[in-house]
């Protein structure tokens, strides 16, 4: 089925979240999301220092056919936007869980615990339900 690394958390809106050793999290869009969008031609990521609320639109991924918002999976402060994507948005298609990460965020106190994040298996169920 879908390419869903087991060490990541997911959202219903097709973001993935990776916990980094320094306490920040890395955020991107899933393989399913990049595939549904098709060839990406424009990615806008937030600047470091921006404070976001959970579920706030904070990045944009645009393919030839559609523009889609990316939502902050949890509240916190952006520590980095992926600088590579301005010139090479297609990296998100080629490597959505690696080089194609969108942003890094330092979660607000308690935000990680409060966020209703999905396991790979739970996200797979979301995808299975979408097919019908």
């Amino acid at each position: 089925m879908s390419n869903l690394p087991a060490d990541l958390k997911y959202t219903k809106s097709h973001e993935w979240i990776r916990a980094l050793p320094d306490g920040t999290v890395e955020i991107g869009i899933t393989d399913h999301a990049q595939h549904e969008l098709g060839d990406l031609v424009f990615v806008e990521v937030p600047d470091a220092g921006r404070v976001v609320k959970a579920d706030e639109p904070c990045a944009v991924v645009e393919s030839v056919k559609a523009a889609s918002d990316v939502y902050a999976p949890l509240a916190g402060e952006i520590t980095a936007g992926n600088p590579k994507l301005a010139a090479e948005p297609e990296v998100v298609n080629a490597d959505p869980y690696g080089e194609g990460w969108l942003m890094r965020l330092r979660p607000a106190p308690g935000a990680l615990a409060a966020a209703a994040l999905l396991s790979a298996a739970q996200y797979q169920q979301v995808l299975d339900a979408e097919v019908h």
Partner: protein
Amino acid sequence: MVDFGGWDMPVQYSSQIGEHHAVRRAAGVFDVSHMGVLDLRGAGVRPFLQRLLANDVARLKAPGKALYSCMLNERGGVRDDLIVYFLNDYWYRMVVNAGTRARDLAWIREQARRSEVEVTERTDLAMLAVQGPEARAKAAQLLPPADGAAALALDSFVGRELGRWFVARTGYTGEDGFEIMMPAADAVAAWRGLNALGVASCGLGARDTLRLEAGMNLYGNDMDESTQPYESNLGWTVALAPGERDFIGRAALEPLARAGSPRKLVGLLLEERGVLRAHQRVAAGPAGEGEITSGTYSPTLERSIALARVPAATAGQVQVEVRGKLLPARVVKPPFVRTGRSLI
């Protein structure tokens, strides 16, 4: 897959951008069987079409020659845009859009009631568009040698019956190629045959980026019943001469032709990163405001392009509102790309 005028159609087979480049650089095939093919036959067909269409079929002298035309309502609004082929004095063939097909057919039959014209919808035919610099040479290989040679000898915008197929040197991509109408039972084998010759399967997504680069309008986006040809970059298709030809919509268009249309359809080239999309607002300074009718990312130019309906005085630089930000864009005359080359 998406619904398109009641047809289940693929947006892409592999990669939309890959399919786009295949057509600009080599050859691609599109299933355009969703388009309506209408045969109009009878002793009165020529005068009938001279009343029905804004372009003048009297321009068609040689059998097989095609004409692009609008079909207007009485207010001069565009009911549809279409291609009409002159096959002989008693037979013309029309290709209309999928979304307007049923409405067109009802309208044409109503107009034809008092004419000696019989209208037949050719639902038995499939249509494949084979487009790109290598398209004609590849497609000709599907035909018996004599027919293949005849197909390759076709002039631009001319079609011809070759065996069971009607092969026309037309298209909607800005590249050379054929549109081939064939019995529906032939279509799968023809498609696979083209694939085997290296012709890429192409979906609706690539069709849209190719036509927009080529500066060709999409019915329902860039014009419809509420807009007239002069504000749709289609004034060149309205034949006002001879003055005595009384086509539907003429009375509404004549004052506009004299005074000039208050709005026009122009090309826009985005000067920053981002993607222009339909319905975004265009700020044209003192000229006023307009709206994007079609926008996309141009794979050939690697930047965003659009068609926009703007006040007639618009020129030079404008700004487009993209997600709350005003981005600079340059007004250009379409097409953006033809036969693989940038015209910008």
